[in-house]
C-alpha cells in the first residue's frame, strides 16, 4: 500500500504544490507555518478539495488525476479534521461506530469496536455523551477514535493532539504511535508540535507558502535543518553563509568558526541554544565565537530559561538556553547587554 501524489491547488494568494510519496505502513508528518497549505493538502488527499493539477494514486489505483476526481466516499480515507466535526446528533459511541457501520459491520461489532477505540484513548466513560456535552480535548479524542475506527487505507490527521492537556498527551501519543506502527496503511499527519512529528513520523515534510522547503527522516532534519523555520522547530540556531577555507563561515552573525566541514562555498551553520554561553563581560578563553548581544525576551520554562538575543553588528536573532538559576545570577532581563559565545566544537556546518 503506497501513496504517490502531487497536490496542486490554488488557494487565493497561495498555490499549494506538494508532492508526496509514501511507502507501506509509513507515517509522514507535514509541518509548516500557519497558512502554508497543510490542511489544503490533506483535504485534497481526502477528495474534499479538487486538484488543479497533479494526481493522487494509492496502491497504483488513481483517485484523482487529469479529468478524474473520486468522491470522498469512494476513497477509503479516514480524516480527522482540525475542527473535529463530530455528528452533533449522535453519541460519542455512535460517532465512532459510524465508520464501521458504513462499511458494513454489524451493529454489535461496530459498537464493540467503538468502545475499544474510545477506551484506548481514555474516553470510554464518555461513550454515551453527545458532542455538545464534551470538552474540547474530550471531543478531539473522540474524533481521533472515529478516524481510527475505519481502518482506512489512508489515514489523514489534522492536528490530532492540539487540544490535549500536557499530562494525557504523552499517553495518547504513545497509543497512537503503537497503532500506527501496527498499521499497514499510509498515515499523513499535520502538526505544529515537533514532538508529535518526531515521535510519530518516519518522514517529515516541511511546507512553506505552499511549497516543500525540506524533507527527510526525523534524524536528518534534526541534525541538518536547511531552512530557518525548520531550525526553529527543531530548536537550533541556523545561519546561511559562505566559506572559503572550509573552517570559518561568513554569516549574518559574523564569521563563525566551525569544527571544519571540508567544503567550499554556500553552507549552513547550526548550533543548539544550550551550546550558547552568556557572559556579562567580554570573555577571553577558549571560546572562539563571541558576539555582543542584547536580550530581547526571557522565557522561563520549568527549570530552564530560553533567552532570545539580538546578536552581532546586525542584531541577528539568536536563541540561548540557560538554567533558571543563571537568570537570577546574571540578572538577565530584556534590554541587558552582554556577550554570547559558542565553542567551535559545538558548531556543525554543512553544504546548502
Amino acid at each position: 500500500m503506497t501513496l504517490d501524489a502531487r497536490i496542486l491547488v490554488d488557494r487565493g494568494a497561495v498555490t499549494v504544490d506538494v508532492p508526496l510519496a509514501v511507502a507501506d505502513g509509513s507515517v509522514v508528518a507535514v509541518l509548516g507555518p500557519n497558512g502554508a497549505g497543510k490542511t489544503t493538502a490533506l483535504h485534497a488527499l481526502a477528495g474534499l478539495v479538487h486538484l488543479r493539477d497533479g494526481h493522487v494514486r494509492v496502491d497504483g489505483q488513481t483517485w484523482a488525476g487529469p479529468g478524474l476526481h473520486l468522491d470522498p466516499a469512494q476513497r477509503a480515507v479516514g480524516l480527522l479534521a482540525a475542527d473535529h466535526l463530530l455528528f452533533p446528533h449522535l453519541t460519542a459511541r455512535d460517532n465512532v461506530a459510524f465508520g464501521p457501520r458504513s462499511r458494513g459491520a454489524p451493529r454489535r461489532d461496530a459498537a464493540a469496536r467503538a468502545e475499544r477505540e474510545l477506551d484506548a484513548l481514555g474516553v470510554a466513560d464518555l461513550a454515551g455523551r453527545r458532542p455538545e456535552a464534551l470538552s474540547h480535548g474530550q471531543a478531539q479524542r473522540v474524533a481521533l477514535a472515529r478516524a481510527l475506527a475505519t481502518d482506512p487505507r489512508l489515514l489523514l490527521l489534522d492536528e490530532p493532539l492540539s487540544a490535549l492537556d500536557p499530562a494525557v498527551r504523552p499517553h495518547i501519543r504513545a497509543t497512537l504511535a503503537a497503532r500506527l506502527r501496527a498499521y499497514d496503511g499510509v498515515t499523513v499527519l499535520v502538526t505544529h508540535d515537533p514532538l508529535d512529528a518526531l515521535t510519530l513520523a518516519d518522514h517529515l515534510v516541511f511546507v512553506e507558502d505552499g511549497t516543500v522547503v525540506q524533507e527527510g527522516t526525523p534524524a536528518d532534519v534534526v541534525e541538518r535543518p536547511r531552512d530557518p523555520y525548520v531550525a526553529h522547530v527543531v530548536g537550533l540556531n541556523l545561519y546561511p553563509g559562505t566559506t572559503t577555507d572550509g573552517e570559518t563561515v561568513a554569516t549574518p552573525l559574523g564569521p563563525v568558526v566551525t569544527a571544519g566541514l571540508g567544503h567550499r562555498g554556500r553552507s549552513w551553520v547550526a548550533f543548539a541554544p544550550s551550546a550558547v554561553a552568556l557572559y556579562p563581560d567580554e570573555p577571553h578563553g577558549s571560546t572562539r565565537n563571541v558576539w555582543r548581544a542584547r536580550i530581547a525576551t526571557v522565557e522561563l520554562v520549568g527549570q530552564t530559561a530560553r533567552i532570545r538575543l539580538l546578536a552581532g553588528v546586525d542584531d541577528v536573532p539568536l536563541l540561548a538556553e540557560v538554567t533558571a538559576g543563571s537568570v537570577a545570577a546574571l540578572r538577565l532581563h530584556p534590554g541587558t547587554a552582554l556577550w554570547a559565545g559558542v565553542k567551535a566544537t559545538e558548531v556543525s556546518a554543512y553544504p546548502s
Partner: protein
Amino acid sequence: MTAPAPTVATPGAARRHPGRSRAVLLVPAGLGVALVVLPLLGLLLRTDWGSFASNLSAPVVWPAIRLSLVTTLVTVALCFVLGTPLAWLLSRADGRAATWLRAVLTVPVVLPPVVGGVALLMAYGRRGVVGAPLFEAFGLRLPFTPTAVVLAQVFVSLPFFVLAVEGAMRAVDARYDAVAATLGATPLRIFVRVALPLAAPGIASGAALAWARALGEFGATITFAGNFAGSTQTAPLAVYVALQNDPQAALALSIAMLAVSLLVLGMLRGRWIR
C-alpha cells in the same frame, strides 16, 4: 508588528439601550402578530356561541372532519416520502437546472387553486395526459375519489414542504456530509443517518406547514375531487356548503377546524417540532 495604541474604553456603552433596542424589534413583531390574530379574534367575537354546539352536530360535520384528518395525514406522509429526498438533492445541487427546478416547484403555489384543480383534471382526469392511459389500461379512475383529494392536497402542499425542508437542509453544514463520506457512508446512508436527523426540526416545521396547507385546501379539491359528502367532502368543502344557506354553521365548522389544528400544532410543536 506594532502594538496598537489603546484607545479610550467605553465601558458600559453596551448597556446604553438594550431595552429600547429590543422594542425596535418588538413593535413590528407585535404588529405582525396582531395582523394575523385580530381577524381570528373577529371570527370568535362574531360567532353565535348559543347555537355553536347544535351547528357542529349536523350529520355532515363529523364525516368531513374525519376525511380531512385521514387525507391530510396521508398527504403529509406522502410529502415526507417524496419531498425529503427531493429537498435533499436540491439542497446539495448548485447548477442552473436545480435553480429552475426550484422555481418550477414554487409555481403550484402561484396557481389559483381552482386552476390547479383544472390542471389536475387535465393530467389525471379520464381524458388527462396520465389519466387516460391509466383508465384504458387498468380501468383506474382518480378524480372524484378520496385518492383525488389526497392528490390535490399533495399538489398544493408539496411545494411548501420541499422548499421549507430544502432551506433546513441547506443550513446543515455540508462538511458533515463530507465527513460521513470519508467514513465510507453511501449517499443513501448520509441522507438517512446525517441529513435527516440534522434537518429534523426543519422537516417537522415543513410538515406542520404542509399539513396546515392541506387541511385548508379548497379550490383544487372541489374541482378535481368533487364535493361528495362522505367520500370527497373535506372540512373546507363542508364549510363552503354550509355557507350556502347557514353562515353561522359555516363559522362554527371553521372554528372547530381551527381548534383542532391549533391543538394538534400546539401539542406536536411543544413535543417534537418546538
